[in-house]
């Protein structure tokens, strides 16, 4: 990475130009290295030895996959199971095995039992210790999420929210796809917010926190419902922490933003792309030429590096991939 950074404003190893270079790679699938609260992205296909050594220095690595939409069979991707399997193959071929995987929702298209079954069977091939889930709105259709909770949320609270600690990092999975209000966006709800507040209360300021949820917890594009009504309340509980990373899915494209101590990151879908904000008639599936489909699908790998890094100064405007 070092030789890509021309104007380093902080001794953190990343600047705006480096960040934008990372963005340019996003369409081919990304490998991200987290350093003191900033995610650094690497393309699978363009990864060189220096990248691999940077990744190897991390304390641990985990991957994020998202929006598998098993059961979808329309023009934007008639075989979402095949592309999920390709994503898994890429994940298994990473230079470092992710110690666990986060799936940030929309496992299925229509919450059908056979769709969940196909997903589960496919994910058995992932070389990792464990997969953690949060539901997307497609996973809680018709039954208010009962089947989702039965399969993935037995140890979780409420609609499926949960937290765990891994090597000194606190992970929180939030659910923002339930009990949505007419005219509104994603919603966490008071019960979950109360739980979240108490969940992070006892943590030291220095504990890195990673929050993952399906719908973005930042206002990506409210006109398309790409945001969460009460996310500010959740984020206010995280202000005192030095390093916060928020991982989301839902919008089927990579976007990153750094705001204060928080790095926001959305992942690509393993199924089909969606248009950049406002760049289409709707946020629905986007048909791209067949030979381009695989360049807009992928997974995110996060390598956690413990160190004394200040936060990068990164342009906060939205960047589509």
């Amino acid at each position, binding site marked *: 990475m070092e030789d890509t950074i021309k104007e380093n404003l902080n001794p953190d190893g990343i600047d705006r130009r480096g960040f934008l270079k990372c963005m340019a790679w996003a369409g081919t699938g990304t490998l991200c290295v987290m350093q003191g609260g900033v995610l650094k992205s690497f393309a699978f296909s363009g990864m060189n030895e220096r990248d691999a050594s940077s990744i190897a220095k991390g304390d641990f690595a985990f991957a994020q996959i998202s929006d598998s939409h098993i059961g979808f069979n329309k023009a934007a991707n008639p075989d979402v199971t095949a592309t999920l399997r390709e994503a898994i193959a890429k994940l298994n071929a990473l230079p470092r095995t992710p110690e666990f995987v986060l799936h940030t929702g929309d496992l299925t298209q229509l919450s059908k039992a056979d769709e969940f079954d196909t997903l589960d069977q496919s994910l058995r091939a992932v070389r990792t210790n464990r997969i953690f889930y949060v539901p997307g709105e497609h996973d809680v259709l018709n039954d208010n999420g009962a089947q989702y909770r039965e399969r993935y949320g037995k140890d979780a609270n409420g609609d499926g929210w949960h937290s765990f600690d891994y090597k000194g990092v606190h992970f929180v999975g939030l659910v923002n796809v339930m009990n949505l209000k007419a005219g509104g*966006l994603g919603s966490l709800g008071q019960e979950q917010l109360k739980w979240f507040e108490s969940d992070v209360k006892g943590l030291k300021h220095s504990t890195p926190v990673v929050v993952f949820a399906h719908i973005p917890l930042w206002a990506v594009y409210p006109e398309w419902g790409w945001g969460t009504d009460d996310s500010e309340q959740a984020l206010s509980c995280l202000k005192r922490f030095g390093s916060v990373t928020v991982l989301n899915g839902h919008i089927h494209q990579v976007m990153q933003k750094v705001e204060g101590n928080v790095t926001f990151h959305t992942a690509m879908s393993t199924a089909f792309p969606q248009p950049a904000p406002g760049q289409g008639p709707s946020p629905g599936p986007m048909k791209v030429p067949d030979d381009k489909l695989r360049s807009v699908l992928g997974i995110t790998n996060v390598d956690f590096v413990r160190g004394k890094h200040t936060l990068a100064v990164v342009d906060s405007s939205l960047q589509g991939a």
Partner: protein
Amino acid sequence: MKSRTFGIGFGIALLAGSALAAAMSSARLAQGAGDQPAATSITIDNFSFTPKEITIAKGTTVTWVNHDDVPHTVVSADKKFKSKALDTDDTFSFTFTDAGTYGYFCSVHPIMTGKVIVR
């Protein structure tokens, strides 16, 4: 409650597609629209209900049809009607027997809202 019960019965008759429905309509729900029960449709395209707002006579059956590649629902704000998730080309119908204004939305994509005004 009485009119609600009747509305469900009427819906079943409609499903049967028999002349009975028309007979019931003309006998007990006639709105000056001839012998046929009034019916209209609302389409779902590009995450929007079209028309977004409609005004109908009492007894009219509204059918929503989803043309999107993603599932949507039709849920009234006051819980008077609620569809299952509608996949591509799936439909949902509801017969409005009482006058009033019925705001509704897609509970999967709540940014999608619409309104049915029954006179």
